[in-house]
C-alpha cells in the first residue's frame, strides 16, 4: 500500500531505523526517577527494556518524571509518567515506542494488519494526520485559532499537579498588529478567578495548579480560550484576533461584567471605535467632544473644549497622553481637540475613584493612550475633511520587536481665507494648527520593553488684526517596563512637558511687543505592581515633578518700540509623591480598593515677594516686608496625605453596589478670567500666599446589568467639596501681574449630583442614554478680602447646568452602512444679567446683578452622521470609508452667551450662538 510505503519512507528519513531489540514483551522493570528529564527517562527505559523510543525532543522539554516502582511493566511506567499531561505513547509490534504530544500515534494499520493490534493502542482517526503532527520537527506557525484547541503546559512539568496556587502571567496582544490589548479580561470560571490586563497588556493570575480553561475576552476581539496544565509558575502570551472591522459592533462580549466587577467608580472607558461613531462638528473624530457626552462631564459652551467634571474647574483635570501632561488639549479655540484620533487607542476618564498612582489635579484624570503601532507590517490611515487632514503611518522597524507610529494633522484653512474677497474683511486673517505624534516601542525580550512618545502641537492665529496669538504643547516621554517575575513588575517613566504661548503685535512701532508665557515640567515616576495573591494586588511607587514656569514676559519688538521690558520672575517648585494601593478581594462578592498617597510640594527660590500681615487684605498698603529668597531655598512647603478608598459588593452576578471616598490635592492653578480655556491663560504654582487647592469626594453607586450583560444600567450619586479654588477680585489683572496674590481670592465650592445611565453594548443598535442632575456652587469666604462676590454667599459656577440629558446611538444597518445620532439637552448656563440702567460717560450703561443669578436659554442639539464603508475584502490594499453628517440638524440657535453693550449710547442685548444652522460635513478616511 502506497500510504504505508510513504510512511515508512518518512520514518526512515527522520529516524535512523534501529535494529531489533530484545524480545520479552512482558518485561518487568524497577527503578527510581527523581525529577528526571526526558533524556534520562528515555535512556532508563531503553536500557531497562531494550525498547527503541522515538520522540521529538523539543516537545518534551518540560517533562519531569518522579516515579519509584518495582516490577512494573513498561505500560504502567509510561502511564504514570504521562499522567495529567498531554503526552501519549504508542508501542508497535517491533518494540518501538513512539512518544507524542496530544493525540496518540496510531501504529497499527488496522485494515491491513489487524492481527498485530495491541490491546493498549486505540486507533485514532486517520493515519495521515497523526503522522504529520509527529513529523513536524520545527513547529509550524501555530494559527491563533487552532491555539484554542491546544493544551499548554505551564511551568516545570511534573507527573502530578502539585497542591496550592501557582501564578501564570503574560501579555495579551492583537494577533495582526502585535499591539497590547489593554483591559482584556483573563479568567477561569471554576472557581471564578479573573483579572484584567494592564496598560501594557500584561496580566498576572494566581490559580490552583491543575488543568484550566483560561478565557480571554475583549471588546472587538474574538473570545479566546487556552487550555492549560498549570504545574508551576510560568508564562503564557495570548494573541487575540480582531473581529473583522465591519463586525466590530456585533460582538462586545468583553468587559461585559467590568462595570459590575470593578471596584472603581465613575470610570469611563471609551475605545476609538466608539469615539468614531459619534458625530462631531467637522466630521473629525474628537475625543474631547465625546467625553462631553458622558454623564457628569460638562463644558461652559460650544467653542470650549475645556471640560468640567462633576463640578470641578477646567484646570482640575489631569490630561495625560502616554503619561505626558497636556496643558492645552485644544486647537483653534477648542473647535478641535489636540489628539489625533488615528494615533489614539483608547481613553479612560476617572471621575470619582482616582487610583493612588495619579495625583496633582482634584477633579479627574483623563488618560489618553496611543496605540503601539503595528508590529507585523507597515500600515497607515488618512482622513481628508473640509478644514483638516490627518495621516498616520505605523509599522515594524524590527519585526515583532520594534515598532514605530507617526501621525500628523494640519489645517488648510489659510488658503481658503486668502480666497475671500477683500471686502469680507477676513482676507488677512490666519488660523492654523498642526500636531505631530511620534511613538516608538521596543521589546528587548519578554521582560523588558521601552516606549518613547513625542508630541508636538502648534496653533497660530490672528483675526484680521496685527495681534498674532500662538501656543504650543511639547512633550517627550520615555517608559521602561520591566517584569521581575510573574507577580512583580515595574514601569519607570521619565518625561519633559512644555506648554507656552505667545502674543505679538508689531503694527504700532512705538507699542510693538512680544509677550510670552511658558511652563516646563520634568517628571519622573516609578510604578510597581505586586500580585501578592489572588486577594491582594499591591500598587506602589513614587513620582516627582520639577516645575519651572516663566509667568510672563513683555518685551519690545523693533528699534522704535518704547515698550519697557517686563519679565516676571520665574517660578520653580518640586512636587513629589509616594503611594501605596491595595486591591483587596475579601470575598468574591466584596472587594476593597484602598490607596494612600502622600504628596509633598516645595516652592523653591530664587524669588522675591512681599509679606503681608495675617488677616489683612493683601494689597500694596499692607506690605510689611519684602522677602528675597535665593536659589534652592524652600520658600514654602505644602503637603499631606490623600486617601483613595473604594469598595464594591456584588449582590448578584449582575448587580453590585459601590462606595468611594477620595481626597486630592492640586498645587498648580490656571488663572483665567474668561469663561472658557483661552490661549492666554496662565498656570500659576502655589506659592507663599496662594495655597494649593484640595478636593474631597464621596460617592455611591448602584449597577445592574440585564439581558446577559448586554444592557448596563448605573446610578451614581456624589458630593464634593472644593477648597482654595481661585477666583479673582473685580478688575483683577492676571497677565503680567507681579503680585498676583493681591488679585486672587480664595473660594470654596461644593458640588453634588446624581448620574443615571443606560447603556446597550451589543446588537445592531447600541449606545447610551444618560441623565444627570448636578449643582456646583461657589462661595468666596476669604475674610481678608474687602470685596466679596455676591456678598460672600454661594453662587452657581459658570458650568452649573442642573439638568443634562444625552443620547448617543449607533445603528448598524448593514456591514457597510451605519447611522449615528447624538441628542443633547441641558439647562442653560448661568449668566450675570443687567438689572438696571444708568447714564455715565455720555451713554447708557448697565448695572449688573449678583454674579450668575440668571441663565441663558436651554441648550438642545441633535447631530446625525452616516458611515459608509467601502467593500469588505479583507486583503485589499486600501480600505476606505466616508463619513457624512449634519451637526445641529434642527438648526436651533443655542446661545453660547448673551451680552449687553452700549452702542451709540444705548444699551443693546445680544445673544451669541455658534453653529446656529445645520452644519453639514463630509470626511473621507482610508486605511492601508
Amino acid at each position, binding site marked *: 500500500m502506497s500510504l504505508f510505503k510513504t510512511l515508512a519512507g518518512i520514518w526512515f528519513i527522520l529516524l535512523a531505523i534501529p535494529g531489533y531489540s530484545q524480545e520479552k514483551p512482558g518485561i518487568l522493570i524497577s527503578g527510581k526517577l527523581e525529577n528526571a528529564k526526558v533524556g534520562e527517562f528515555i535512556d532508563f527505559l531503553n536500557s531497562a527494556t531494550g525498547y527503541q523510543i522515538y520522540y521529538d525532543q523539543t516537545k518534551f522539554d518540560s517533562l519531569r518524571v518522579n516515579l519509584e516502582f518495582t516490577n512494573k511493566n513498561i505500560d504502567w511506567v509510561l502511564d504514570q509518567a504521562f499522567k495529567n499531561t498531554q503526552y501519549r505513547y504508542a508501542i508497535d509490534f517491533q518494540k518501538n515506542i513512539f512518544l507524542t504530544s496530544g493525540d496518540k500515534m496510531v501504529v497499527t494499520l488496522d485494515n491491513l494488519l489487524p492481527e498485530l493490534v495491541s490491546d493498549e493502542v486505540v486507533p485514532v482517526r486517520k493515519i495521515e494526520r497523526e503522522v504529520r503532527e509527529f513529523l513536524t520537527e520545527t513547529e509550524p506557525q501555530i494559527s491563533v485559532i487552532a491555539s484554542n484547541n491546544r493544551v499548554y503546559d505551564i511551568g516545570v512539568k511534573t507527573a502530578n499537579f502539585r497542591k496550592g496556587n501557582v501564578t501564570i502571567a503574560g501579555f495579551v496582544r492583537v494577533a495582526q498588529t502585535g499591539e497590547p490589548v489593554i483591559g482584556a479580561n483573563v479568567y477561569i470560571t471554576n472557581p471564578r478567578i479573573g483579572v484584567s490586563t494592564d496598560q501594557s497588556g500584561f496580566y498576572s493570575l494566581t490559580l490552583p495548579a491543575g488543568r484550566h480553561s483560561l478565557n480571554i475576552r475583549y471588546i472587538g476581539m474574538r473570545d479566546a480560550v487556552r487550555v492549560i496544565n498549570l504545574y508551576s509558575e510560568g508564562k503564557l502570551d495570548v494573541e487575540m484576533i480582531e473581529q473583522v472591522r465591519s463586525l466590530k459592533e456585533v460582538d462586545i462580549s468583553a468587559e461585559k461584567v467590568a462595570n459590575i466587577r470593578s471596584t472603581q467608580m465613575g470610570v469611563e472607558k471609551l475605545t476609538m471605535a466608539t469615539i468614531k461613531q459619534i458625530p462631531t462638528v467637522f466630521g473629525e473624530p474628537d475625543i474631547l467632544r465625546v467625553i462631553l457626552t458622558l454623564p457628569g462631564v460638562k463644558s461652559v459652551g460650544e467653542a470650549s473644549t475645556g471640560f468640567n467634571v462633576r463640578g470641578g474647574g477646567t484646570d482640575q483635570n489631569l490630561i495625560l497622553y502616554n503619561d505626558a501632561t497636556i496643558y492645552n488639549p485644544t486647537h483653534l479655540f477648542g473647535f478641535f481637540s489636540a489628539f489625533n484620533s488615528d494615533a489614539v487607542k483608547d481613553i479612560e476618564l476617572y471621575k470619582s475613584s482616582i487610583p493612588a498612582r495619579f495625583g496633582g489635579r482634584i477633579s479627574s484624570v483623563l488618560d489618553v493612550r496611543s496605540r503601539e503601532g503595528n508590529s507585523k507590517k507597515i500600515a497607515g490611515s488618512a482622513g481628508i475633511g473640509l478644514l483638516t487632514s490627518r495621516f498616520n503611518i505605523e509599522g515594524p522597524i524590527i519585526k515583532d520587536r520594534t515598532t514605530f507610529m507617526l501621525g500628523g494633522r494640519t489645517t488648510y484653512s489659510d488658503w481658503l481665507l486668502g480666497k475671500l474677497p477683500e471686502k469680507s474683511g*477676513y482676507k488677512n486673517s490666519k488660523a492654523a494648527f498642526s500636531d505631530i505624534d511620534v511613538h516608538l516601542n521596543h521589546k528587548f525580550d519578554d521582560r523588558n520593553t521601552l516606549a518613547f512618545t513625542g508630541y508636538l502641537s502648534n496653533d497660530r492665529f490672528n*483675526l484680521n488684526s496685527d495681534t498674532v496669538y500662538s501656543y504650543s504643547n511639547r512633550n517627550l516621554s520615555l517608559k521602561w517596563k520591566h517584569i521581575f517575575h510573574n507577580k512583580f513588575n515595574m514601569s519607570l517613566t521619565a518625561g519633559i512637558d512644555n506648554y507656552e504661548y505667545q502674543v505679538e503685535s508689531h503694527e504700532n512701532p512705538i507699542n510693538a511687543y512680544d509677550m510670552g508665557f511658558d511652563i516646563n515640567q520634568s517628571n519622573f515616576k516609578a510604578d510597581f505592581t505586586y500580585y501578592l495573591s489572588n486577594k491582594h494586588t499591591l500598587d506602589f511607587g513614587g513620582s516627582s515633578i520639577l516645575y519651572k514656569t516663566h509667568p510672563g514676559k513683555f518685551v519690545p519688538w523693533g528699534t522704535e518700540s518704547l515698550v519697557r521690558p517686563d519679565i516676571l520672575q520665574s517660578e520653580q517648585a518640586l512636587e513629589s509623591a509616594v503611594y501605596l494601593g491595595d486591591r483587596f478581594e475579601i470575598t468574591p462578592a466584596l472587594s476593597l480598593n484602598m490607596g494612600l498617597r502622600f504628596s509633598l510640594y516645595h516652592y523653591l527660590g530664587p524669588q522675591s515677594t512681599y509679606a503681608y500681615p495675617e488677616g489683612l487684605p493683601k494689597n500694596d498698603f499692607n506690605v510689611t516686608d519684602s522677602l528675597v529668597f535665593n536659589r534652592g531655598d524652600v520658600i514654602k512647603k505644602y503637603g499631606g496625605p490623600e486617601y483613595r478608598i473604594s469598595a464594591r459588593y456584588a449582590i448578584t452576578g449582575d448587580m453590585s453596589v459601590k462606595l468611594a471616598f477620595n481626597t486630592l490635592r492640586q498645587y498648580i492653578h490656571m488663572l483665567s478670567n*474668561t469663561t472658557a480655556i483661552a490661549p492666554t491663560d496662565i498656570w500659576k504654582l502655589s506659592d507663599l500666599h496662594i495655597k494649593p487647592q484640595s478636593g474631597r469626594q464621596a460617592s455611591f453607586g448602584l449597577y445592574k446589568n440585564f439581558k446577559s450583560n448586554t444592557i448596563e444600567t448605573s446610578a451614581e450619586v456624589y458630593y464634593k467639596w472644593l477648597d482654595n479654588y481661585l477666583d479673582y477680585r473685580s478688575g483683577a489683572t492676571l497677565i503680567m501681574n507681579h503680585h498676583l496674590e493681591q488679585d486672587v481670592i480664595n473660594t470654596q465650592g461644593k458640588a453634588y449630583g446624581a448620574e443615571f445611565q443606560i447603556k446597550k453594548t451589543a446588537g445592531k443598535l447600541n449606545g447610551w442614554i444618560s441623565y444627570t442632575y448636578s449643582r456646583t456652587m461657589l462661595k468666596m469666604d476669604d475674610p481678608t478680602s474687602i470685596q466679596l462676590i455676591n456678598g460672600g454667599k454661594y453662587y452657581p459656577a459658570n458650568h452649573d447646568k442642573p439638568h443634562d440629558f444625552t443620547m448617543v446611538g449607533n445603528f448598524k444597518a448593514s456591514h457597510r452602512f451605519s447611522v449615528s445620532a447624538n441628542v443633547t439637552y441641558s439647562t442653560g448656563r448661568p449668566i450675570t444679567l443687567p438689572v438696571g440702567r444708568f447714564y*455715565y460717560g455720555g451713554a447708557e*450703561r448697565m448695572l449688573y446683578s449678583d454674579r450668575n443669578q440668571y441663565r441663558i436659554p436651554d441648550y438642545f442639539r441633535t447631530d446625525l452622521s452616516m458611515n459608509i464603508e467601502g467593500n469588505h475584502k479583507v486583503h485589499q490594499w486600501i480600505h476606505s470609508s466616508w463619513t457624512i453628517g449634519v451637526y445641529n440638524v434642527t438648526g436651533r440657535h443655542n446661545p453660547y452667551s448673551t451680552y449687553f453693550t452700549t452702542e451709540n449710547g444705548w444699551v443693546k442685548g445680544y445673544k451669541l450662538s455658534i453653529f*446656529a*444652522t445645520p452644519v453639514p460635513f463630509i470626511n473621507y478616511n482610508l486605511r492601508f
Partner: protein
Amino acid sequence: MKKICSFFTLLSVMLLFVKCKEAYEPEVVFTATNLLVVEGHLNGSGVTSVKLSRTQANDSRAKLVERNATVSIFDENKQAYPLTESSAGQYVTSASFPSTGKYSLHIRTSDGKEYASEEVSVLNTPDIEEVSWNRASTGVQIYVDTHDASNNTRYYRWEYEETWEIVPRRFSYYELVPKVPAPLGSPFPYDIIQRRPQSQFPRACWQSEYSKNVIMASSTKLTDDVIHLAPIAHVPNNSWKIDTRYSILVKQFALSAAGFEYWQNMKKNTEGLGSIFDPQPSEIRGNISCISDPAEQVVGFFDASTIKQVRIFITKAEVGDWQYDILCDEKFAVNHPDSLAVIFPANIPLESRGDPFGGITAYTGASPDCVDCRFRGTPVRPDFW
C-alpha cells in the same frame, strides 16, 4: 469682543452658515433699585460740573435725574465750595481749585441721605501732542499722541466732541406763499414767488455729537510715558460727517490708577462681553459711599484733573474718495395747478423752466431735507468754525 464674533462669521463664510449674533431681550425684571449715580469731575482748569442721576429699575429710556441735592466740594481744610444746580441734575461751580489741594465731594440728596467721596488730588494733565488721522480701509481713524516728560501721568482718558458742517444739496430760488384768501376748491392754493431774503434758507448748518464710549489708555508698560497713536474716534466710510468739513475736539484727562481701574471696569462691563475671551461682568465700586447707609451702593467715581484739549479739522478733499450721498432727485411739475399739487407743498420749489417768451412752463422741486439743513443741524455757526 467683536473680533471673536468675526472669527465665527469667518468660519461661517467658509462653511456657508451665517448666524452669529442676534438681538436678545431677556425676560428679566429690572429690579435694580434707585441707586445714586454720580458723575463728578473736578476741573482744575475751568468749570467743574457734577451730574447726579439714578439707576432705573424700569425699562424706560428716560434719564432719571437727581434734583434739589446739596452738592459741595471740600478741600482738606474743610473749606466748602458749593455747587449750584444749573440745569436738571447738573451742579456746577466756576470756583478755581488750587492744584496743591485735596478735595472730596459731598452730596446731600433731597431725601436726606448723605454721600461723600474719598479725597482726591488734582492731577496735572499733560498737553496733547497731536491729534492725527489716517484713511483706513474702513473709514477715517483719528488718533491722539501725548507724552509726559516727567513720566508721572501714565493713565489717560479722552472724550471728544465731533462737529461737522452740513451744506444743503439743493438751492431754492422760489417759495410757496399761500393764497390769501384761500380759494375754494383749488387743487393748488399757493402762489410761487421768488424767494425773499427773510425766508432764505441757511447756507450751512452744523451738527455735534459727544463721545459715548469710554476711551482710555495707559503707558505703564512702556519705558517712557508716551501714548502713540491711541485710537480715539472712527468715522465710518462715506459717513455724512465728512460730507464737507469735519472737526473733532479731543479732551484729555489724566487719571489716577484707581480711576483708571474704575473706568476700565466700566468699559469692560458695558462695551463688549459675551465672547469667549471676555471676562465676566464684575461689580464696579467707585470711591463714593453713602455715609448714612454704608450698605447702599453708589455708582460713580469722583476724580480731579486739569483738562487739555486740541481741535483738528478734516475736509472731504483731504480724505478723498468719500461718497456720502442722500437721495436728492429733482422733481418736475408742469406749471398747472393739478400738476403742481402733485409735488408741492411736499417738496420745496427750486427753479423754474421758461419758454422763450418769459413764461414759466414748469417748476422743479426737492424734498425739504435736501434744501433746508435745519432738519439736521443748527444754523448757528460755531465760534471755532
